[in-house]
């Protein structure tokens, strides 16, 4: 089904605002039917605090808890909080075709999105989200396909833009201006296939301005660029502890260096 609001924004005289009122997730999709499919457009989703998960007192998916298929278009998901996935907890499929996931907080993992399914970002932004530990923009334990849009200005201790534990396919779009102690753009313990797009202007206060490639991490550089990132200690472009394949010349103009020695 499709749910169309009057428009996303903060003006209730013009916009549709769905407010979780600091209780549970705002939308829960596919909990009883993984084939459930919904398009959400033209609304602001805010004020959610997630659903209990895992039996340890954690809450997941402040704005949206998804086990189905969601198409996001021209909606704003902001001002939500949870332990896992302040904006969205996903174990199904999220297709972002516009709009923004911004200003959400994951107290532990995934400020914008905690992903165990598939996230396809075609346009729109994931920005200014915060995670207390891993993945300011996205904590990924599934598959993230970035074909457009941006992941920008997010913050975490480990992986400001993305913490990747599984697979990230960067085909287009921009990972920019994210910050972290380790891995300003991405902290990686899985596989990154960069086929396009840009990882630029991210910053780490310790290691890996663009990418912190941890033990178990594999990076395949096929196209695109990793540039103008900065790390305070080492590995401005990539701080590597495991495997990098492909075109290392895609990594350039980083500070203090493109790769750690």
């Amino acid at each position: 089904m499709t749910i169309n609001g009057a428009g996303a924004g903060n003006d209730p005289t013009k916009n549709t605002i769905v407010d979780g009122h600091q209780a549970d997730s705002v939308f829960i999709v596919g909990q009883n039917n993984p084939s459930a499919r919904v398009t959400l457009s033209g609304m602001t989703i805010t004020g959610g605090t997630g659903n209990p998960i895992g039996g340890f007192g954690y809450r997941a998916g402040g704005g949206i808890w998804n086990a189905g298929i969601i198409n996001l278009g021209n909606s704003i998901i902001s001002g939500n909080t949870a332990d896992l996935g302040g904006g969205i907890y996903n174990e199904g499929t999220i297709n972002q075709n516009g709009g923004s996931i911004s200003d959400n907080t994951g107290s532990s993992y995934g400020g914008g999105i905690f992903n165990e399914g598939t996230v396809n970002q075609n346009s729109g932004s994931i920005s200014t989200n915060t995670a207390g530990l891993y993945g300011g923009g996205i904590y990924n334990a599934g598959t993230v396909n970035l074909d457009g849009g941006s992941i920008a200005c997010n913050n975490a201790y480990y992986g400001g833009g993305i913490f990747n534990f599984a697979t990230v396919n960067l085909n287009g779009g921009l990972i920019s201006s994210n910050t972290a102690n380790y891995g300003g753009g991405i902290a990686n313990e899985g596989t990154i296939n960069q086929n396009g797009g840009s990882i630029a202007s991210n910053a780490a206060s310790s290691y890996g301005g663009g990418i912190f490639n941890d033990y178990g991490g594999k990076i395949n550089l096929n196209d695109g660029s990793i540039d103008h990132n900065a790390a305070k200690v080492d590995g401005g472009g990539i701080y590597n502890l495991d495997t990098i394949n492909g075109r290392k010349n895609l990594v350039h103009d980083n500070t203090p260096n493109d790769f750690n020695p």
Partner: protein
Amino acid sequence: MAFFLLSPGVHSIEIGLSGGNRGESVSMSSNYDVDTGIYVNEEIPIHLSTIGISDTRSISGMGNKKVTQSYSGTGGYGGSASFTASGSGYLIGTTNLYPRSMSASQSVSDSGESANAGMSLTNGGTASVNCAMAYGSMAASQIICSTSALASSTAHINGEFGSRTTAGSASIIRPPSTGAFDLDLNQDAQILSTPTTFDHAAFYVNPSTKIQPAVDEALSDDTINVGPGTIMRTYISINR
């Protein structure tokens, strides 16, 4: 031409017409069960040269009304139209029957306790559309057409609702809803090589109410349009 003008006070009316020549034939019948105070008008020019019937009919007024019309012709086609309502409203219908082809339409409107409107076509299979309203208002336009094997309906309903769209063995059934809604309902049933059904509702939700009741009534292809405002809700659960 046959011409009928029926005044208030009539409760039950039956009209039947048929024509044929050289193995080609058409037939039509109309039935009215109406309360006192309902006006009924039906005009039926008969085309002897082409063996055809063109019919226009209308009813209007406040009270119970049950109107049915059935059609058949050479080539095996058949059809029917029905309208049952209990409030204030009207029906305007047109019918064109020829051997091997026909088309008919009805526009209905009613406000009150209940209304039900449907049309059905049999032509190598059965295509039918039906929509119903309770405790509100309904305005619907429906057609059937044998040449394109189509039954189609558009309706605006404000109240409880239900619908059924059938093409061959394919059927989409909405049981009566459990709450009052404001919605547009578009239905198509077509008998082609593969019978197709389409039953799509667009709900309109006022933010002063809740989204969940519309979500619970919506089918997977439906649209829920929410107006401007703030909706306070702990969660909205979607499982279709």
